[in-house]
């Protein structure tokens, strides 16, 4: 049973575009929703995280939008750059330390 469903599987945008990655979950007991960025040969690194009682959070060019009633959340990358090309994972955290990851989105930002 997949706890977190992520889409799309891959995404290509031009430099300056705004890629949007979506995730959906079922378990309302999750208490935190982070996004991770992973470059080839590296482990996932935390980008930004949101609590379920907040509808939006911005950190630099990264924004999480959270829709509690729809049980969905998304990552927006403003003014995307070629250096943002990586795989992005959403996750949902239960009991503050049990992570369930989405299947990942491979983003390619073309110059």
């Amino acid at each position, binding site marked *: 049973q997949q706890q*977190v469903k*992520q889409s799309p599987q891959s995404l290509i945008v031009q430099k300056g575009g705004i890629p949007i990655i979506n995730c959906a979950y079922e378990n309302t007991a999750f208490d*935190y929703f*982070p996004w991770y960025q992973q470059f080839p*040969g*590296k*482990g*996932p*690194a*935390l980008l930004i*995280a949101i609590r379920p009682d907040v509808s939006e959070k911005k950190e630099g060019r990264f924004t999480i939008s959270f829709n509690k009633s729809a049980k969905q959340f998304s990552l927006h990358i403003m003014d995307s750059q070629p250096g943002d090309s990586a795989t992005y*994972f959403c*996750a949902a*955290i239960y009991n*503050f*330390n*049990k*992570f369930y*990851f*989405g*299947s*990942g989105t491979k983003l390619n930002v073309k110059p």
Partner: protein
Amino acid sequence: EAGVAQSPRYKIIEKRQSVAFWCNPISGHATLYWYQQILGQGPKLLIQFQNNGVVDDSQLPKDRFSAERLKGVDSTLKIQPAKLEDSAVYLCASSPVGQGVYGYTFGSGTRLTVV
């Protein structure tokens, strides 16, 4: 602050052989996790330790996988015997108690290829 160290970076073995991975967490991090990341998928938790005790090993295939964390610091993950479907990146992560997502740090992983 040094990150989570893992070795080796790469390993190629034949099926039915055994293999071991090593992880050294960030100093002071009481909780240590091993994840399996199959190509094209998100990481899946295999086992979680707090100090040297197992907190969760519900997704560890115990017939072939084992892990230990002696003295509550370093950890090793072993596969014996390996199967083709074990080909994956094995990630180690650590976190201090009580910091949730913000203290959670992944290592760069060990890429295992079983042929």
